């Protein structure tokens, strides 16, 4: 893949490139046009925040970008690869290698320990559980976990701790794109801030891009760029929150 060659080619600097992307749910009267022609570029190395009112299509957009949802029309290249040219299984495998996920509801598997949860992407990619767990432990140290917390179950952890586990899980296999859907909205302000700090320091790196969907204006400071979305379209892309023009609809 050209994208892996030391970051000098054009493709390497562009992690995600969407053009006139559309997605409609349902048909006929019930049809909901979630994406109405999205144009968006996410650069390698940046943390891009996707903001906008409820129902404007943010989750739909990152679902298409992450390869868990098929687009209807338009173009969408992820590191110069097109999901529409891949089989179902190849798409899944591509996600396993290249995408990291962080969810609002954490989605940690309750019967796996913290370290086993973090090791899961490696196991999916074929690593033996023992090796995966020891790799997971290394990264859990980076998010501030001690031995005891590594062998505890998710239910024994606070929300902030669970989200730190989820971030470790999204990073452990060194994916090139990390998508986060409202990673802080289940957490209180201070915890959310710490989580963003963690994502910002550990997640950003050479050749890796982060797309963070959020409602929370208190974390805008962690964005390299902010893309505002309204009614299924990207309406503005700015470098800092202060440049954001007021939206037609209010962000709640």
């Amino acid at each position, binding site marked *: 893949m050209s994208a892996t060659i030391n970051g000098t080619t054009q493709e390497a600097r562009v992690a995600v490139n969407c053009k006139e992307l559309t997605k409609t749910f349902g048909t006929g009267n019930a049809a909901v046009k979630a994406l109405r022609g999205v144009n968006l570029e996410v650069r390698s190395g940046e943390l891009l925040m996707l903001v906008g009112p409820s129902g404007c299509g943010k989750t739909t957009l990152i679902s298409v970008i992450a390869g868990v949802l098929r687009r209807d029309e338009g173009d969408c290249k992820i590191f110069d690869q097109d999901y529409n040219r891949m089989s179902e299984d190849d798409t899944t495998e591509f996600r396993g290698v290249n995408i990291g996920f962080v969810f*609002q509801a954490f989605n940690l598997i309750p019967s796996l320990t913290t370290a086993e949860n973090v090791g899961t992407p490696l196991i999916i990619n074929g690593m033996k559980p023992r090796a995966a767990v020891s790799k997971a432990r290394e990264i859990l140290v980076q998010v501030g976990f001690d031995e005891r917390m590594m062998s505890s179950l998710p239910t024994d952890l606070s929300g902030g701790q669970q989200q730190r586990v989820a971030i470790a899980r999204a990073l452990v296999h060194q994916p090139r794109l990390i998508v986060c859907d409202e990673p802080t909205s289940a957490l209180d302000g201070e915890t959310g801030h710490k989580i963003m700090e963690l994502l910002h320091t550990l997640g950003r790196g050479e050749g890796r891009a982060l797309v963070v969907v959020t409602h929370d204006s208190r974390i805008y400071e962690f964005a390299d760029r902010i893309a505002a979305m309204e009614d299924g379209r990207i309406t503005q892309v700015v470098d800092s929150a202060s440049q954001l023009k007021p939206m037609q609809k209010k962000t709640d």
Partner: protein
Amino acid sequence: MNFIALKMLFGDRAKYLGIVIGLTFASLLITQQSAIFAGMMTRTFSFLSDVALPDIWVVDPQVKYIDDIRPMQDTEVLRVRGVEGVQWAVPLYKGSLAMRRTDGTYQSCVVIGLDDETLMGGPPTMVIGKLSDLRRSGGVIVDATGAAGKLAHIQPDGTRVSLKVGDEMEINDNHSVVVGICKVTQTFQANPVIYTTYSSATSFAPSQRLLLSFVTVKAKPGQDLNALCRRIEKATGLRAYTRDEFKMVTFLYYLQYTGMPINFLTAVALGFLVGVAISGQTFYNFTLDNLRYFGTLKAMGAKNGMLLRMILLQALVVGGVGYGLGVGAASAWGMLISGRTQLAFRLPWHLLVVSAVAVLVICLSSAALSIHKVMKLEPAVVFRS
């Protein structure tokens, strides 16, 4: 992924136990019921199993199964002996006669009269005494279960005293004396079995005009048994069965003309339904509970094939554990119960295979539902809360 699948399964202890208990119950019920059925069915031809030496049994053409006794002329023995390929042929009497207990009540017994000369067809195991003691006048050998049970003397205080060697008894008002105790395979009717000689049997049952129940035949070495049967039938106009044929005919008769298969099938179906209802449903619920995590795994790169193998593994593990416990419990029950009672219980490996298949069907069908659900799952659900 096996690691994750098993952790998921054992992690939900309540559901895991529920599924395993359901499957244990199902395999216990299926195994136990079919073992009882098999036991009952082998008892229908237990007499044929005990009299192991003859190759061929010759009976009246009307006879439909072993207990369907239609006496023949004594001279038929001689006619059978004349058929080419017959090494020896001896008469055998089998009938039901009333034995009078000391308290005046009667007990119906299976009386077997053996050829006086050869004593061919005797009990498989002697416990006390020798078979040749039958030659003493009025001598009978009684089966141990009958001696300790239905034939035992009941004392005035209610205790039972087993019939023992030297005891006298009356069969059809004929005086006889116990000269031995033997062991026989339990019969279907579970009546006591009494061995005597053919000539004694004649005197026990004087009112019967004809006494010859069977002519048992040993073929000369190297004979084709089926061909020999046909020759005997041609020469005598009787019906000749090989031992296995006669067993099968008897077995099929009971299968067809008693309600047992229905009972048995009902019980097995019930076990199966219990398995499906409890375990199948719980397993499906278990998958539904974990749907969110299957979706997460899918999003994180787990292909459908991996998830399919995970669910299959989970199903096979609960199936294996449930089957093991169920079959173990059934065998333990069988050992316990058949040691103490006269209940028929036979657990040949075929039945283990049958219940294994039944459990497998339950597991795989519930797994199929779960797999269908997970295969169809859109990974995009992971972002919906």
